[in-house]
């Protein structure tokens, strides 16, 4: 018979090891540990316990991201909004001359769309999406709204988000 406050069946208050919180050792903030490697591997999907890697033991993978560096638009974040230029303002060279993925991006951005949404809806890799929208911006087919936005972390914006969420029911 379980009591309130018990964990899942089989783990009652009596079973709990109060000295170490059920076998869990408290987290030591990184600054407390000396000589510890900077990254710890998280448990994998199979649930193996995390490794406390010995300092600089063994090879350490480094990662190369695909895609070239964008020169055209700085700071394209995943939430950055992209909107298509309407036909009247678009380049003379029509959209139909662009590669298929680029055409799809322009079509999708008839409504403002985040880079992440473009990536997800068109099933394009995030890195590829950034490159393509940057190119489309440079060519004049879309506007990437990376610099013309107010700082999202201003008190004014935060308060607006708070008020909006409070209104949810």
């Amino acid at each position: 018979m379980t009591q309130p406050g018990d964990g899942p069946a089989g783990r009652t208050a009596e079973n709990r090891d109060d000295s170490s919180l059920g076998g869990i050792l408290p987290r030591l903030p990184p600054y407390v540990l000396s000589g510890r490697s900077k990254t710890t591997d998280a448990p994998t999907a199979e649930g193996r316990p995390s490794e406390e890697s010995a300092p600089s033991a063994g090879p350490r993978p480094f990662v190369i991201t695909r895609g070239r560096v964008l020169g055209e638009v700085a700071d394209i974040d995943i939430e950055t909004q992209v909107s298509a230029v309407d036909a009247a303002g678009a380049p003379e060279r029509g959209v139909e001359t662009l590669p298929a993925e680029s055409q799809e991006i322009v079509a999708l951005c008839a409504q403002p769309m985040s880079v992440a949404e473009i990536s997800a809806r068109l099933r394009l890799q995030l890195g590829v999406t950034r490159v393509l929208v940057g190119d489309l911006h440079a060519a004049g087919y879309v506007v990437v709204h990376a610099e013309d936005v107010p700082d999202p972390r201003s008190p004014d914006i935060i308060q607006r988000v708070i008020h909006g969420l409070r209104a949810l029911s």
Partner: protein
Amino acid sequence: MDFALFPDNTYAAISDVSRSSSGLGSTGLRRVPPVPVKIVIAGGFGVGKTTTVCSISDIQPLTTEAEMTEVSNGVDDAGDRYEKHTTTVAMDFGCITIDETLKLYLFGTPGQTRFNFMWDDLAHGALGAVVVVDSDRLNDCFPAVDYFERTELPFVVAVNAFDGHLAHQLDDVRWALAVKETVPVLRFDARDRLSVRDTLLALLGRALERAGGQA
């Protein structure tokens, strides 16, 4: 900033965006996009990050994928050699439309922490983070807590209480995670929209304090 793209005289209108709540230019034709803000939903594998996003998102949650090419040193019988392989990292996300000028995105972190730089990408410019914790597997959230402590971002620890059970009291969770007193540690139900909302509000309260505003 190049706004010569627009045929009518809406260049001036765009610079008025911050003063205009309607987001429309002088001709009414200009589509000014909403300001996007984001909150990161972090935590270990299977703790309920996607459930959290699903519960409150206006849109059907989506998944964006990033492909990483990893090069690692492998040591085999022949001595050092390089191995190259690609991994796809997936991030679930949703969106809440606050109003026509403001959208809140919720991005879930990928499960694998060896892609910490992806967390950098997610966290860049974010309002803050919610570190979702499964109270049966506290260890799983240590990497996320480590990460957000190192950043400047406000964050909260949200213990996902499955079926109303909490394996440990919140005070014990706070002790085990060794987070500062200023970091809220709270319980929530990832499946419950209003519970998720209240968790986001707790984070935003912290963010507002840090930004120097009044709640």
